[in-house]
Structure formats: structure tokens, C-alpha cells
């Protein structure tokens, strides 16, 4: 039962998904318009044909009636029954009825119902009931004379007209479908291409471009693609420029810094320096080390954020990595009076092993620095139901207030606001950059008590599936 419900739900969901496609909606609207147009045209045609047919019938019937009256006027009423019989026998398309006042049939097969003027008459025919349009008059002797025509022929004609109209409507709808299949589907595919390309770029593959086939006369969709490509080129140019500036700055700063460092080392090793001066040199060296560390961290952050994903496609065994890191950090964590619990189930992620290692190291070190002794750090690596890897680093320390959880991911943001605390101030920013770089969703939550950082990696399978990279 639940299975059936689930299947129905899936169909409904899929239905909604299809309905969200603009192309499908356009096709449906187009077909509806075609059908309504044919319906209206059909009804108007039928009404016009019916009106013109009836007018013609009436003229013919009146003509026949006039001819019979003329007979009566010329040869007397006595011979009219004979005339009707003869005309019926010769069959000119008319039916007649002549009855006396008592209703006794004198000639013909119509039975006028005792009223004068135009009317529609139904009476049993040889196999099916017949319908007639008749005109009834009274002769000078008071007998009922009816002249009429069978309506069946007209009705048959009308049915045929209707049939043709329905066929034409069906053809129109089919034609609409065909046009949709040819045109809208290709449009749909091209829009999907653009959406795919945009999604890949959003995932960090900045080199991807929309495939724009060169056309003599580009249409609006081509223009969307071209505009998107132009935008991506511009963004790519800006990123390239930024990277070039970063490299230049790095080079321009590092060479003088190298000299400063070398001069300080020269001083340090010089024999003729008093001890007090030597301490000044040592402090200058320590300051320089700190400066360089921050400098390195910033450059690395820029590099992780700037480089596009996709150049490395290695599978990273997160369980093994977690075990290795546990082995590495356990002594230091325990020396600080904290505990480290590791739970490593099999989990794979696609990406750069060194960067993922750094992300975890930064998280573990963050837990070591910002919690009091006695805190338990937990590192958990596991595969979720869909096969995607999930990494959790949690502690039961003081945690981070909810309103600051995003802020701590920005460079140089410090919770305690004291610049004196160790660390470059970009540790968590690098964590965020590495996560973004691997398409992993990073969330900071309340561990009640403490902080829980979760990185949800995309399924490794999907990341490795051959993707249409264009450009």
C-alpha cells in the first residue's frame, strides 16, 4: 500500500517537474488554443450552414406550395389528391399530406398536426423516425394541406461538416505537437545546456562555457548563451587579474622579506653582538615569522578560493585520513587535558587529499585552542545513506553563539577579539574555502553544549561521473 502511494507520489512529483518546464506549458497552451479556435470556427460554420439550408428549404417548400395552389385554382380542388399522388410518384424531393377536417388521410404521407404555418414534424418512418420541415395551409374547402422536406439529408451534411472540422482540429493539435517536438524541445535542450553550464561554473569549474554553435542569425537563446559566456569571460579575466596581482605582490614582497630574513640571520650568527642586541634580533625574527605565517595563510586562502575545481580527481579515503590525524593529534590533545574520540566509517570523497587534511587539522586545532581542558573532541567520518561522505568535528566546549557562526568563517575574525591569541586568524576561513572548493556543504551547529562543524561532501560517484565540460 505504501509502495503504491510512493509510486503515485513519484508520478505526481515527476508530473509537477514536467509541468514546471516552460516548453511543456507552452505546448499545452498552444494545443488548447488550436482546439478552442477550431471549436468556435466549427460552431459558427454549423450555424451558418444550418441557417442557409433552412432558408433554402423554406423557399423550395413555399414554391411547391404555390405550385399546388396554382393547380387548385386552375383545375379545382377535386383533382389535388391526384396531383399529390402523381408528384409523390415522380419524386421531386417533397413530401405531402392532405387530410380532411376529420383527419382522414386523402393523399401523401405527412400527417399535419392541425396547426397552420411552419413547423418541424416527427413521425415514424419505414425503419427510423423521420423529421420533416413542413408548411401547412388550409384549402378553400377546409382541408389540411402540408408540403415538407425530409431533414435527414441536411442533418447528414451537417454531421459530415462536423466530422471534417473535428478531423481538422485533431490535425491542428498534432501539428502543434510536432512543431513543439521539433522546436520547443530543441529550445528546451539549449536552455538545459545553459543551465548545466551555469551550474558547473557555480560548482567552481570556471573554464566551462555554454556551447554556442555559430549561426548566421543568432536567436534570443543564443544571445543568452553569448551573454553568459561574455560574463564568464569577464569574471575569469577578473579572477586571473586578481591572481596575477596576488602573485606579483607575493613576489615583490617576498624578495625584500627574504633579504630581511637573511640579514637578521647574519646578525644572529655574528660573533660580535652583545647579548641584549641578540635578543632584539631574536624578537625581530619571531615577529617576521608571525608576519610570514599570516602572509602564507592569506596567499593560500586566495589560492584555494581562486583555483577552479576539477584539476584533481583523486579519491580521498576519509576514514584512513581520520585515523592518521587521530594518531597524529591524540598525544597533543591528551597533553592539553582534553580527550579525542574518533569514529571513522568507510567514506570516500573526491578531491585534494592535502587540502582536506588541512581542513580537518584546522578544525581539530581550533577545538584544541578554543576549549577548556576537560573538553572532549569528536571526529566522526561516515558515509551517508546516499553514499556521500560526511565529516563532523564536534566538541562539548563553550561553543559559538548562533549569530556569530557565519562570522567566524571570515578571515581575521576572532571570537575573543584578542589579537594576542595564537593562530593566523584564517584557520576557519581556510576550512570554509576548502569545503566550498570541494562542493561540500559546511554547517556550524550547536552541539548542546559545544560546537559541531559538519562538512557534507557531494557523492563521490557523482563527482567522478564524466561531466560535459565545454569550452
Amino acid at each position, binding site marked *: 500500500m505504501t509502495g503504491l502511494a510512493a509510486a503515485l507520489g513519484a508520478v505526481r512529483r515527476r508530473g509537477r517537474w514536467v509541468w514546471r518546464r516552460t516548453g511543456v506549458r507552452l505546448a499545452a497552451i498552444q494545443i488548447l488554443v488550436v482546439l478552442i479556435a477550431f471549436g468556435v470556427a466549427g460552431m459558427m460554420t454549423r450555424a451558418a450552414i444550418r441557417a442557409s439550408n433552412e432558408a433554402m428549404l423554406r423557399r423550395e417548400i413555399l414554391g411547391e406550395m404555390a405550385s399546388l395552389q396554382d393547380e387548385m385554382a386552375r383545375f379545382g380542388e377535386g383533382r389535388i389528391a391526384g396531383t399529390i399522388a402523381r408528384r409523390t410518384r415522380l419524386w421531386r424531393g417533397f413530401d405531402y399530406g392532405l387530410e380532411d377536417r376529420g383527419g382522414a388521410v386523402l393523399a401523401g404521407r405527412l400527417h399535419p398536426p392541425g396547426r397552420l404555418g411552419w413547423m418541424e414534424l416527427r413521425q415514424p418512418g419505414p425503419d427510423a423516425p423521420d423529421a420533416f420541415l413542413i408548411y401547412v395551409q388550409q384549402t378553400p374547402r377546409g382541408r389540411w394541406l402540408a408540403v415538407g422536406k425530409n431533414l435527414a439529408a441536411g442533418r447528414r451534411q451537417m454531421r459530415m461538416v462536423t466530422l471534417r472540422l473535428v478531423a481538422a482540429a485533431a490535425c491542428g493539435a498534432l501539428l502543434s505537437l510536432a512543431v513543439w517536438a521539433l522546436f520547443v524541445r530543441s529550445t528546451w535542450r539549449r536552455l538545459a545546456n545553459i543551465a548545466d553550464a551555469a551550474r558547473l561554473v557555480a560548482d567552481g569549474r570556471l573554464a566551462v562555457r555554454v556551447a554556442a554553435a555559430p549561426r548566421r542569425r543568432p536567436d534570443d537563446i543564443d544571445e543568452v548563451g553569448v551573454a553568459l559566456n561574455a560574463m564568464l569571460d569577464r569574471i575569469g579575466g577578473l579572477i586571473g587579474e586578481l591572481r596575477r596581482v596576488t602573485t606579483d605582490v607575493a613576489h615583490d614582497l617576498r624578495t625584500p622579506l627574504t633579504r630581511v630574513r637573511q640579514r637578521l640571520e647574519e646578525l644572529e650568527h655574528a660573533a660580535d653582538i652583545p647579548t641584549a642586541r641578540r635578543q632584539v634580533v631574536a624578537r625581530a625574527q619571531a615577529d617576521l615569522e608571525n608576519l610570514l605565517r599570516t602572509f602564507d595563510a592569506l596567499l593560500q586562502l586566495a589560492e584555494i578560493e581562486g583555483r577552479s575545481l576539477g584539476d584533481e580527481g583523486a579519491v580521498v579515503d576519509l576514514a584512513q585520513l581520520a585515523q592518521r590525524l587521530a594518531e*597524529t593529534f591524540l598525544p597533543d590533545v591528551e597533553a592539553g587535558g582534553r580527550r579525542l574520540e574518533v569514529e571513522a566509517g568507510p567514506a570516500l570523497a573526491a578531491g585534494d587529499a592535502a587540502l582536506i587534511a588541512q581542513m580537518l587539522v584546522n578544525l581539530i586545532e581550533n577545538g584544541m585552542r578554543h576549549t577548556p581542558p576537560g573538553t572532549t573532541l569528536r571526529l566522526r567520518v561516515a558515509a551517508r545513506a546516499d553514499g556521500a561522505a560526511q565529516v563532523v568535528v564536534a566538541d562539548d566546549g563553550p561553543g559559538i553563539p548562533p549569530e556569530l557562526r557565519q562570522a567566524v568563517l571570515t578571515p581575521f575574525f576572532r571570537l575573543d577579539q584578542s589579537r594576542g591569541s*595564537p593562530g593566523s586568524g584564517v584557520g576557519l576561513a581556510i576550512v570554509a574555502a576548502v569545503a566550498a572548493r570541494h562542493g561540500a556543504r559546511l554547517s556550524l551547529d550547536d552541539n548542546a553544549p559545544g560546537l559541531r562543524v559538519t562538512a557534507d561532501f557531494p557523492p563521490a560517484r557523482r563527482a567522478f561521473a564524466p561531466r560535459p565540460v565545454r569550452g
Partner: protein
Amino acid sequence: MPAASIAITSAAPPPAAATGLRLLVVEDDAEVARRMESSLVAHGHQVAVVGDGLQALTAGSAEPFDVLIVDRLLPGMDGLSVVRALRTRGVATPALFVTALGAVADRVAGLESGDDYLVKPFAFDELHARVRALGRRAGDMRREPTRLQCEDLVMDRLAREVRRAGREIELLPLEYRLLEALLLNAGQPVTRTMLLEQVWGFHFDPRTNIVETHMSRMRAKVETPGAPPLIRTKRGAGYVIAPPPSEAG
């Protein structure tokens, strides 16, 4: 500028017991090049300095060197392509790339096995340690030693066994790899950064004392209490495993 010609400076009396290496420094900044040269010479190496890629190609293919020290950002050229060009000429000398780029991609991109990199600005101790390691590795390139030894401390790399005076020592995997990194460079300092790279694969500096912690645990297992230590800490330079001074020489 001293870099204009190939100047082979003859070795001053070597401060270390190790024999000097023949080094080619390719560096366009004259002052940095001069300081590197004098520091390397002071460590007993023979140093040739050139200022650009073209001279490096000429010098590198004309004379045998033990190690090339190549700046990545040379005027109009990438130091990496200079080394590649030399390799195509059959020069297999290992290279130490000096890079100001500092980016992970650039650090790892040009490295073949046997090459190494150094990020500007570097400490001279780091430079010396890496040059020594490269020079030694170049000599050992053909045979990967299966047995490493320092005095009565023996590491059997096939059995993954460590014995001190015949007694087997139980080491954790990280401790084993630390000791291995030291033994592979026995007699020469191995810096903290080199250990982070070789043992942990970390190309960044963790803020915690993982190297020190694991080193002290490993030393506690390896050293004999009361006896002079085999593994010594060299301030600022890292760690070195060598026979105790009294027995050396």
C-alpha cells in the same frame, strides 16, 4: 653583478664533516644570490651562481652539478622550464626550486621525484638541510636502501623492524616514519618542515607541536637511558641522527 659569469668558488674549510656538493644557484636577485652563495660556501659547498635561465642552461649542461637551486620566477622565464630543458638534454641533476609563489599548486606542480621546493623567504638552515638531502638522494637514487643504520640502531625497511643493540623496539607507524626520515639523512639535520612533508604529507604549518610530541615519544623508545643520545635537536635547524660526538670522527 657577480651572477654575470660562472664563478666556481673553491670550498673554504668545510665546517661539517660531510664533503661539499657542487651547486648551481639560479637566482636573479643579486643580493639574495650573494648571501645564498656565501652561506652555502661557508657550509663547504662549491657554488656557481647565474642570473638568468639562458646562463643556467649553458652552465647546467656544461658542467656536472650535484644539485640545482633554481628560482621559479626568473626574468622572462620560469625556473621550472629551465630544469625541464636541462632534463631533455640528459641532465638528471635534482633541483631545489625556490619559489615566491607559495601556492600549493605551484609548490607541487613542477616536482618530479628527486626534486624539492623551498618557499621564499626561507631560513638558511632550511636551505642547507634540503640541499644536503637532495645531494644525498641523488647519490642514492639508484638503490633504495632496505637497511638503515646509525651505530647499534638498525632499521630493516623490508621487515619494518627497528632494533637497538639487537633488542627489537616497538614503534608506532608515525614514530617509525619519523625515525626513517632521520636515518635516510643520517648525519644531516632534517628540518621540522621537511618532517611535516615527508612523514605527514602536510604542506602547511600546523599550529600544534605534533612534530615535537611524536619526536619526543620516538626518542624515549629509541634512546638508551643514561647513554649519549643518537638523535639531537639542533636549534632552529631541526633534528639530526648521528653517532654521539665522542665516538664520531
